[in-house]
């Protein structure tokens, strides 16, 4: 009996509390429509980046994550799938995102289909696809220069590896294959001039191949050898300042290549100014180790434990380099060990450092001050691509 009385008293108390709250809010919450699906702006702000989640533990279920790194919350704005060692390349001018990927009809077996999937930036729904012939799309840990655009974003170029190398050129308007270019001994795609691309070659040179108006390969120009692959190779992903690509080498030498003309022009090289405190020495380390802001400053992810074999180990500082003055402007100490860096293209840029645990740390690129962590963005945030116009 005593227990019953106590329960009744509790119920009365609860009811009275509810009535008090209801009196504070005379109107109930509005009913909400179903279904309800969010949309994005067709053109993304400069503070947004694409994070390629390589998803090492489930490669067929990788994805691209669209992240607003400037917002206080609601940072993750959407996701699109990227199947098995794929690539993601946005085109702000076309309001489309292109994903090079591979499917099997029974997920891990059956008929292989390689495609470039075309995604709408506003709805994040697939608008179409271009089937790539031959089942030869190159598969490797993400390198953004495996899928690039040319001809005012009318064509996409995708790198094949069988292990023979070639490039398939596709027309994004008609969504059809335009041509295929053999690329013996060379790897990846660095767009050149109005139509065409250059490629880094195993003999240390760079080969440039112009494409005619029909997409057929024309003149080929091969540079002198400049890439010392044995002792100090260049990382494959450059930071782009306009049409100039800044590559950094394993030992910290910066090399500029001008891609504005029909043939790539290999420009000068200079070392990142040496700094003490490394054991044995400071070296670039990570996966996407160099980025550039709109003003042309370079950000290099640096590892104090640099040595042979350290080049993928990530880093603990980002060094800001002025490539014109050839000076080290600032050292940004990162809060966490990071694997890739990317600068946003805002007037006041942010520097994003991705962590092996899948979170992103965001810094004020001008002062180096830590701004925020965007937690749990990806399983494996291997590369990042800021919105660039």
């Amino acid at each position, binding site marked *: 009996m005593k227990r019953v009385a106590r329960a009744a008293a509790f119920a009365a108390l609860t009811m009275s509390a509810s009535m008090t709250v209801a009196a504070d809010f005379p109107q109930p919450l509005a009913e909400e429509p179903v279904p309800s699906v969010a949309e994005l702006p067709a053109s993304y702000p400069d503070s947004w980046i694409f994070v390629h989640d390589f998803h090492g533990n489930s490669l067929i279920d990788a994805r691209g994550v669209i992240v607003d790194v400037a917002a206080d919350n609601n940072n993750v704005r959407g996701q699109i799938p990227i199947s098995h060692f794929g690539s993601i390349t946005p085109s702000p001018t076309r309001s489309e995102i292109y994903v090079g990927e591979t499917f099997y009809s029974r997920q891990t077996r059956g008929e292989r289909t390689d495609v470039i999937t075309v995604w709408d930036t506003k709805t994040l729904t697939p608008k179409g696809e271009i089937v790539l012939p031959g*089942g030869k799309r190159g598969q490797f840990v993400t390198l953004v220069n495996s899928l690039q655009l040319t001809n005012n974003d009318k064509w996409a170029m995708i790198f094949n590896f069988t292990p023979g190398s070639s490039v398939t050129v596709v027309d994004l308007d008609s969504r059809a294959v335009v041509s295929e270019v053999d690329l013996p001994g060379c790897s990846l795609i660095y767009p050149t001039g109005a139509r065409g691309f250059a490629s880094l070659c195993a003999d240390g040179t760079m080969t440039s191949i112009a494409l005619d108006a029909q997409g057929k390969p024309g003149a080929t120009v091969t540079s002198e050898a400049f890439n010392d692959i044995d002792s100090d190779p260049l990382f494959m992903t450059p930071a782009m300042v306009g049409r100039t690509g800044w590559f950094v080498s394993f030992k910290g030498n910066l090399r500029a290549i001008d891609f504005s003309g029909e043939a790539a022009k290999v420009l000068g090289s200079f070392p990142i100014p040496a700094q003490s405190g490394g054991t044995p020495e400071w070296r670039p380390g990570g996966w996407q180790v160099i980025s550039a802001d709109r003003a042309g400053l370079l950000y290099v992810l640096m590892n104090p434990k640099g040595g042979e074999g350290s080049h993928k180990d990530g880093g603990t500082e980002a060094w800001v380099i002025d490539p014109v003055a050839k000076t080290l402007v600032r050292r940004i100490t990162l809060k966490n060990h990071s694997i890739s860096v990317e600068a946003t293209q805002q007037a006041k840029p942010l520097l994003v450092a991705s962590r092996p645990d899948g979170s992103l740390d965001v810094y004020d690129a001008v002062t180096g001050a830590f701004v925020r962590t965007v937690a749990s963005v990806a399983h494996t945030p291997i590369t990042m691509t800021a919105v660039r116009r």
Partner: protein
Amino acid sequence: MSGLDKFSEKMTRRVARATSRRSLLTLIGGALTGAAVIPVLPVSRAQAQGHGGGGGADPIAPQTTGNPQDPGDQTKCDYWRYCAIDGFLCSCCGGSASTCPPGTEMSPITWIGTCMNPADNRAYIISYNDCCGRSACGRCSCNRNEGDRPMVRPQANNDINWCLGTASAIYNCSTAVILGVALEQK
């Protein structure tokens, strides 16, 4: 090293011929070697550094061969045969250091390394055949990058999915098969 490289190349070609995949080799001329996929690597290595090597997970129970001439734990990255491996260790995925897990297909071309066996002090040629046709195993990721070079030199690059010439290119895990003693080592 050049002598070793030549020997490795020869061994690789032998493997390729034995598996009728010579056409693949010819595509990249004389430079080819082989395989060893390595998905997760850079990240797993950084993770190991960030978390003291354990990543916070409970340890995998050790697996030894029981043969004193083949010492070490085949679930650990420091097992002697894994000196140039990159990927998930098949020993942790239903296979062994030299066997693919049930239902997968072993890649016919491989990345070759030369590893010193601490028990008999011999240098062995090790073939890092990938196992293909199941999604990423996800256990015992191991990445060693000494001698690794960027994609511009594919035969020295462990970031490539070498599940080439298999019915399915989906990557599962990597083995470390003894091909023989590196007799020509200098």
